[in-house]
């Protein structure tokens, strides 16, 4: 592939049906959520962790007006960048190419993995060491490499723990936040050769560092994500705290970076506000420990850096979101995770229950584009629309509004010209009938008066079991007199 995908509606891509991510049925999602919410250990650890992260973020924004102007600025930068996305992607490709970076375009997960496997094979790579990359999770990169006989080792401490445990990240910033130090201690003792049980956190980190330090030197290829790709300079920005990102992108002979097409911005100066609001929103840090600006491979005479740098630009459903003015706002996301930290639902079920790469509120609005609505039509309903996510979003994505839109896309009757793959996957003839009937009653005063009179008059017939409501509450019963009766009687 050699052209930006951003302008073509991905709805036409039939290849996307064959994505490697395991199918998530609505029933499976229900079961996972049920198990998670009834797991007192999970509930306690997520409540504690989210409270901590909310407090850390709040401490970074003591001045509400500063926060508001920074959010407005960041939203503006992201919307401006997206408005020029096709141009910026071409500019980015041209600049990176001139800088000596090889740019690849991938329509979906299979293409991205095939491109990276091709690179790995050309270098006869046996080991790939990875910095943290959610896009690599999205395409199930580790599995694809494993199937090809290549070791892909996570070097971010949280990702390393999750990989050792054979799990998936439960949070986009803190992948192992669902694990206690005791669980990690047991895991290390079981899985890391020559390590005996210790739940001393510093010792555990030292153990991980020793294992990884060796791997950086042995690895044939380093893989990283990208936080911002700057079009005018051809620069890949990487935000991290552990230094593993710098190791992955400088020590191995080959560096492969992978990112979604939406991460491009025009100018370097656009990065500064986004970077500031990213770290403050995500972990409550004024700035991250490392900030890497990668502009190309090692030049003649330079002492370090990879000999080859590749960038894989992944669509994977993003251009579907891009094609719709409202849904495009989904792509403003800078992946800070503040929406999940503040989400009362995420806090109660944790990240793994969602069964998607991106959990929480952002996961509910991006996953339908990445995976199609057949698998994800229930996700947007798992929200009270409380608005906490939209309130803290650093780039002002109207998440509740998008959830409502996706509910509509999922539940409307399947039609011929859908905006989204899987439109109508949640369609239910019964639900549609119920709402049509509701509208017939409530849109006509006579009907409503009759209906409410009957409901009040025959309140004794109100069922005592009311779907999910009475699982935890006493039943709702209409009052003996409606308000309109009270008003009338009084006059």
């Amino acid at each position: 592939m050699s052209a930006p995908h951003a302008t073509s509606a991905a709805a036409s891509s039939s290849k996307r049906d064959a994505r490697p991510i395991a199918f998530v049925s609505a029933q499976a999602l229900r079961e996972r959520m049920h198990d998670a919410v009834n797991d007192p250990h999970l509930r306690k650890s997520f409540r504690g962790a989210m409270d901590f992260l909310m407090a850390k973020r709040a401490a970074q924004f003591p001045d509400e007006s500063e926060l508001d102007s920074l959010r407005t600025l960041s939203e503006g930068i992201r919307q401006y960048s997206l408005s020029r996305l096709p141009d910026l992607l071409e500019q980015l490709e041209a600049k990176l190419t001139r800088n000596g970076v090889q740019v690849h375009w991938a329509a979906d997960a299979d293409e991205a993995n095939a491109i990276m496997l091709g690179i790995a094979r050309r270098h006869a790579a046996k080991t790939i060491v990875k910095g943290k990359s959610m896009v690599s999770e999205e395409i199930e990169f580790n599995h694809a490499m494993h199937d090809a006989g290549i070791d892909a080792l996570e070097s971010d401490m949280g990702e390393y723990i999750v990989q050792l445990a054979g799990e998936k990240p439960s949070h986009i910033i803190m992948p192992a936040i669902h694990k206690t130090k005791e669980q990690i201690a047991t895991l290390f003792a079981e899985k890391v050769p020559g390590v005996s049980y210790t739940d001393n956190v510093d010792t555990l980190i030292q153990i991980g560092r020793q294992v990884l330090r060796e791997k950086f030197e042995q690895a044939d290829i380093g893989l990283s994500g990208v936080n911002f790709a700057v079009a005018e300079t051809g620069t890949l920005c990487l935000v991290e705290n552990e230094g593993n990102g710098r190791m992955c992108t400088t020590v191995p002979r080959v560096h492969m970076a992978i990112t979604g097409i939406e991460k491009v911005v025009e100018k370097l100066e656009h990065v500064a506000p986004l970077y500031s609001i990213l770290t403050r929103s995500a972990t409550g840090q004024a700035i991250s420990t490392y900030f890497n600006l990668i502009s190309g491979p090692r030049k003649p005479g330079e002492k370090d850096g990879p000999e080859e740098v590749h960038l894989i630009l992944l669509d994977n459903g993003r251009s579907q979101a891009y094609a719709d003015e409202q849904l495009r706002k989904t792509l403003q996301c800078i992946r800070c995770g503040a929406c999940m930290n503040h989400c009362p639902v995420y806090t109660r079920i944790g990240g793994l229950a969602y069964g998607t790469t991106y959990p929480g509120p952002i996961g509910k609005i991006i996953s339908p584009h990445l995976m199609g609505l057949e698998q994800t039509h229930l996700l947007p309903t798992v929200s009270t629309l409380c608005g906490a996510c939209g309130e803290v979003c650093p780039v002002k994505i109207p998440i509740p509004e998008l959830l409502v839109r996706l509910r509509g896309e999922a539940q409307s009757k399947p039609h011929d010209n859908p905006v989204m793959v899987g439109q109508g996957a949640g369609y239910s003839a019964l639900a549609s009938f119920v709402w049509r009937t509701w509208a017939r009653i409530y849109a006509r005063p006579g009907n409503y008066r009759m209906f409410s009179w009957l409901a009040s008059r025959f309140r004794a017939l109100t069922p005592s079991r009311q779907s999910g409501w009475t699982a935890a509450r006493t039943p709702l019963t209409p009052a003996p007199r409606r308000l309109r009766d009270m008003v009338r009687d009084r006059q």
Partner: protein
Amino acid sequence: MSSPSHAGEHAPRTYPTRPAAVYFYATCLVDLFVPEAGMDAITLLEREGIRVIFPESQSCCGQPAYSSGFPEEARKVAASQLDLFPGDYPIIVPSGSCAGMIRWHWAKIFADDPALHARAAAVAARTYELAEFLLHVVGFQRRDEGDPVTVTLHTSCSARREMGTHLVGRELLARLGNVTLAHHGHESECCGFGGSFSMKHPDISTAMVSDKVAALKATGAREVVTADCGCLLNITKRAEKEDLDAGRSKPSLPGEHLATFLLRRTGGQPARRS
């Protein structure tokens, strides 16, 4: 953008001077399930010398269908409400979520129809949540005639994040001399109602409302006050169920609409349900 979705994005609202009359838009939940709260709100307003007009043809703002993903049905119902307010009086809604629907979401559901959109915008512009109207327009200030009591306040997410009125309830309670407000943990967190969410995802909804009830009870307050009947029913019906399961005959967490509480404390006679 014509209609941002969160209070944080809105400029502070300017309020009109005290009008001679208002329309009272009760909401479907109040009409059928908590009429006494609506009646008490009307009494509060009339006691301040404001004539209250109750449009007979009112039914619902359309929110249940809108938030469930049925915008067409929401549009039909909302369109039927546009003619109810012919005079140029403020429209008072005793619920943050219905007020939020009218103020911010009507513009979206009528986006494709300029004529309806304009009429909806005109209605939205003079729609106020009861509590903000009492504080900012009426300047509610009455002598608290009740015994000293400690209460806790739950503010709905719509009041907090759509109407930006999360401090209004506090200020109104602060004007009652004998009332102490006890703040609860995770006060800004949703009670787990979410309309159809409570039916569709009972596990998570139960977890949320149980946590909310526990936090409210932990304050030791005698009752919970809220300006939103959706939250009120969710919280009090959950507390009732806990009492039932535990064999308690005395309610461990009674709840009242803010209107009822304000009226009762200031010498008024709250409406009786039956």
